[in-house]
């Protein structure tokens, strides 16, 4: 495993963060963004991304609409909703706590 697969549960966080930062994006754009920003450290599995996007759409965290890309292709663009932003905030905090906790354990164990 050359690059880290994304930890279960963090995909939602990354997607929401990406959408919050970059505005409407299609699925491919999301993977590309995460890969680029993480400097190729994180790789989003296509097999996980779309089910996750659709699930978040059903839970009202993101909204989707068909639109045209700059290459004039039809793509489904995702936008974060208010509920999504709230969710993002909460997940970010719990992620921070988790990261601190893990780091402490690693430091002292």
């Amino acid at each position, binding site marked *: 495993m050359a690059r880290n697969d994304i930890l279960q549960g963090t995909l939602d966080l990354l997607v929401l963060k990406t959408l919050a930062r970059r505005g409407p994006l*299609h699925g*491919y754009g999301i993977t590309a963004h995460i890969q680029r920003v993480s400097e190729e450290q994180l790789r989003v*599995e*296509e*097999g996980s991304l*779309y089910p996750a996007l*659709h699930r978040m759409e059903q839970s009202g965290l993101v909204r989707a609409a068909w639109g045209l890309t700059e290459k004039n*292709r039809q*793509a*489904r663009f995702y936008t974060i909703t208010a509920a999504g932003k709230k969710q993002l905030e909460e997940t970010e905090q719990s992620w921070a706590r988790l990261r601190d906790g893990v780091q402490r354990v690693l430091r002292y164990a």
Partner: protein
Amino acid sequence: MGLRRLLNALRPGRVEGEIRRELEFHLAEREDELVASGMSREAARREARRRFGHPGSLRERTRDADVATTVESVLADLRYAWRALAASRGYSVVAILSLALGIGANTAIFSLINAVMLRQLPVRDPQELVVVGMAGGDATEFTNPLWEQVRDGAHPFAQVLAYGDVQFNLAEAGEARPAQGLWVSGGFFEALGVTAMAGRTLRPEDDVRGCPATVVLSHAFWQSELGADRAAVGRTIRLGGHPHEIVGVVDPAFRGLEAGRAPSFYVPLCADAVHNPKGGFLDHRSYWSLRIIGRLAPGQTAASTTAQLATASASWFANTVPADWDAALQKDYLARTMDARPSIGELSSVRTTYAQALWALMAMVAVVLLIACANIANLMLVRAEVRQRELAVRIALGAGRRRVVRQLFTEGLVLAGLGATLGTLLAVQLSHAMVRWLSTPRNPVVLDLTVDARVLAFTVLVAVATALLFSLAPAWRAVRVDPQDAMRAHGRGTVGGRGRFGVGRSLVVAQVALSLVLVTGSALLIGSFRTLVSVPAGFDPDPVLIATADLKLRESPPAQRLALQRDLLERLRALPGVTHVAASFMTPLARMAWMDQVEVAGRTFAKPEDASVLVNLASPGWFATLGIPLLAGRDFASSDGPGQPEIAIVNEAAARLFFPDRSPVGARFRMARGDGVNAEIEVVGMVRNAKYRTLREGDRPQVFLALSQDTSFASSLSLVLRTVGPPAQLRDGVLAVVREVAPAASVQFRRFADQVAETLGTDRLLATLSAFFGGLALLLAMVGLYGTMAYAVARRRGEIGIRVALGARPGRLSRAVLGEVAWLLAVGCVVGLAGVGGTGRLIEGFLFDLGPRDPAILALSVAVLVLAGLLAGWLPARRAARMDPMRALREE
């Protein structure tokens, strides 16, 4: 979001299309990127796809997120169940049909129970209504003078009403057209909160002495007789020969106060004066014909009202003492009080008559359904066995066991749902047929059998319970399947062994036991009915025609009436085909009784009932016409007239009871006659015992008085004609003769045989239906046994083939199979006999001359069941014996 997911579940195609487009876009983008980084277009496409994994599965997982998984998977289960059931059509048809029969029978009986016992009266706050009764007894009938005391006295009710049955002839003359209605007090409708759909209902001011004759019609009567003509309100209709002004038509939902009987019209009590100007029931102090219903005052209960009635009613009785009663009876009358009973439903005679029969039938159909359930469970087990590999594959592929179980239950529900739908259609027919069966022109049973929410809920509940019940065994088995085992076993031979078969065999034993209970029950009811039919009634009804004639002679003096009667009988005797003609006050088994008490000099009776006799009035030749032999003394003669000493003929039972030491002829007794005076009566003859009210009754003392000496009798009398041809042929001749003699007369005909048969209505219904259900149970048990054994043989093909190849004789093999059948039957019968002991009590009340554990009947039932069972087991046994070992082994 839930709604959208639901919508998505309903349009999977559209969702799929969108997902495909979205994923294709992603692939295209990835491809471009890879090409840009220097890959060939071809390799880029492959790589893009590779990264995606299996596109179908990704699409599916993505879709799963879009579609509510529960709804979706339920739909999938349903689709799957449908496919599975359609795949084995024979099995499904058998299962659905037996469920339709089982559920249909249950729904039919329940809808009758609902209509007769459960449905609330369509009146305002029926729970506030109480029935006024005579304290310390069953009686709920009162006289009009007593009713007027209650109405005008200090009664404890918020509102109070009275009503009584009445039958009026709609025809002016000729053949009678009787219609049943109610005498009602003026406050009847107001107290019940029943309104009119046209015109108005009766009001208190319509029911005052000297009132004009008015009438409120029932909706059904208004439709059938007046063609639902709204202009009919305000016109008059002739009832019993008197014009009544129609003031309104009652709300269609209201069909009287007694389930099963629907009055056609409502006439105010005071109108009796129009029909009987010379004293009807209005001032009669011993004519007990009215029922009184009260609406409880706020905050009161039946008990507190009873306490108030106890004090209030003393003066009511004191004010209405019948002057013609003797001192002892008057004292008894003065001691009476009234009480209030919350059981308004008990008023229904249909309910009291049929309640027990309906519960017995309900129990029967429930057992039939249980047997059907066992059958379907067995079929499903067999199918589950066949499908074991399929289920094992599904479990191995990761389908949760819960999902598999749910799948099996879904199949069960689909089966039960289809069965219930079909069964409900069947139930509507069946329940209507049963009501038609119980209904007779004289006692019409009218029930509202519309399928209401309660019946529907019952059916749904039964269907779901059935589905759970028969899916339980296969589901239980399915979760215990070890996928590896199941795949390896390859549906073969003996490995499954007896352990697996335990469930199936237990089901067969249960079926045998339950069928034995039903078969015994129906054998008892049929046996009892056969006894009842063949019980010597004491008369010969077949050649006899009854013509109940109202001669309209109330105004004429007694002498003229009697002369006219004689004339009528003479002319009727001259009719061709008539061998005997006579007249009486009433005919046997007409559901009427005239009871009185006798005094016999030198005899004291321990209880007043010991002195009670059943009374009738008869003309000369009456006994001969009905075929009741005269055993001693003489018959009445035309010379026995009103002026002479009163004479009577008694039956054997009366002779034995009252004159044990002597010949009854010439003996004397006293009995209250017309005016309440105890007259001395001389016995001139004795006849053989014959039934009076029912065929079930024992021999009770009966006294026949001479019709020709009776001056007080009502102008209606029963003519009996013994004929040589079919009795019904005489109708026109009799009608013509009656109208010659009394032009205004009306006549109602019925065959005596019909009247006798009618008294056995409930017994016949029970016997027939129980025979049907018993037969059904037997058939279902046979199917179950056959299926189980046939399957056992098929499963053991290999083993049997080896045995045959090793030289086992075919006879031995079939004996082995039959031996197993016999074993199952034996266990089932033992269990069943225990059940018979418990359930016998349910039908004990219907049995005539038979105990619920009659050994002959039990032996017969066991024999029938064992024979049927062996027959069902014989086919598979034969198949085992005829198995070709080579073929059986080759198939392995």
